[in-house]
């Protein structure tokens, strides 16, 4: 039997969040954490969490498992369980809507700020805007982000200033468009980032890197942005 402790909070009936301790028989199988949650929900339908693809593609089921953020659907018990115990909490730092579901508005607001779309006002060519293979390669390690928010909600700088610090996820995408040879708004993008909070609240602690389920490296992208700001100023 695996001991499971779940963060529960129903704002309509609970005065405060509480931890529900329960047990589940995994029959010795190395289940994914999402499977455990699904099984528990089968016995208690009020348990609430997000999920969709159940294969690490959609980014819906970011949660905090035994203290570390990750996607429940691709985190096997063997990777997270310590002393036969699994503790599941919502992603830290964001308001809880219910149980494991957090309000992602602040996270998306930061994403929106960096203008996550190609800006190019020159007349579009007949077929498409071409890139050389080298130019295209610069986007590797950036475009794969699924916006699960595991990184930003593990970042202390984002906890303290979620309204002013863009956070690792947003900054990774900011660099994705700064690095795109087809984008012509580099100067405008950089000028929107050069305040003491948007980029410079990153202190390089790399919590973001250690949790990203896609193996991406926001800290490196943030370093690139800083260098671009530096070059622009000198």
């Amino acid at each position, binding site marked *: 039997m695996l001991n499971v402790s779940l963060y529960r909070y129903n704002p309509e009936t609970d005065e405060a969040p509480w931890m529900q301790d329960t047990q589940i028989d995994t029959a010795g199988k190395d289940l994914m954490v999402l499977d455990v949650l699904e099984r528990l929900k089968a016995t208690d339908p009020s348990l609430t969490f997000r999920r969709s693809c159940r294969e690490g593609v959609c980014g819906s089921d970011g949660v905090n498992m035994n203290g570390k953020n990750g996607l429940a659907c691709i985190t096997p018990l063997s990777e997270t369980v310590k002393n036969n115990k699994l503790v599941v909490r919502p992603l830290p730092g964001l308001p809880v809507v219910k149980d494991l579901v957090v309000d992602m508005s602040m996270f998306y607001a930061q994403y929106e700020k960096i203008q996550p779309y190609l800006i190019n006002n020159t007349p579009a060519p007949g077929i498409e805007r071409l890139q050389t293979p080298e130019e295209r390669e610069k986007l590797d390690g950036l475009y794969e982000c699924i916006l699960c928010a595991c990184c930003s909600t593990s970042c202390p700088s984002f906890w303290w200033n979620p309204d002013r610090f863009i956070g690792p996820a947003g900054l990774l995408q900011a660099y994705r468009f700064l690095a795109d040879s087809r984008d012509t708004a580099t100067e405008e993008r950089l000028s929107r980032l050069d305040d003491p909070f948007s980029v410079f609240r990153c202190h390089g602690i790399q919590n973001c890197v250690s949790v990203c389920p896609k193996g991406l490296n926001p800290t490196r992208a943030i370093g690139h942005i800083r260098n671009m700001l*530096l070059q622009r*100023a000198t």
Partner: protein
Amino acid sequence: MGMVTSITNYGRSGLSDWMAQRVSGVVLLCYVVFLTFFMLTNPALTFNEWEALFQQNWMRTFSLLALLSMIVHAWVGLWSVTTDYITTRQLGAIGTPLRLFLQGVAALLAFYYLVWGIQILWGI
């Protein structure tokens, strides 16, 4: 965050803060390395030798530079810490007045240390 924020530095360039932090850090490191080296190469240091060192104009200038760097370094660091923890988000309504008060105290202290440091450096 708009116009009003520039007085509390929200509108300042993050890059210049970042550079100031790096440059002042390097100056402080040089100063510490120099003093350590000086003491290691003068193991039987007397008061007169120490005084003679600080009577050279370049040493006074170097010391003043280090003092200014310390002030810049401390200011950028403390500003960053106070805007992390002493905010309306963390503490409620008291956050902003408390932060401005603490930043004011830090600024006054820094100015006081600067004047005091100049008095010491050029008073001996």
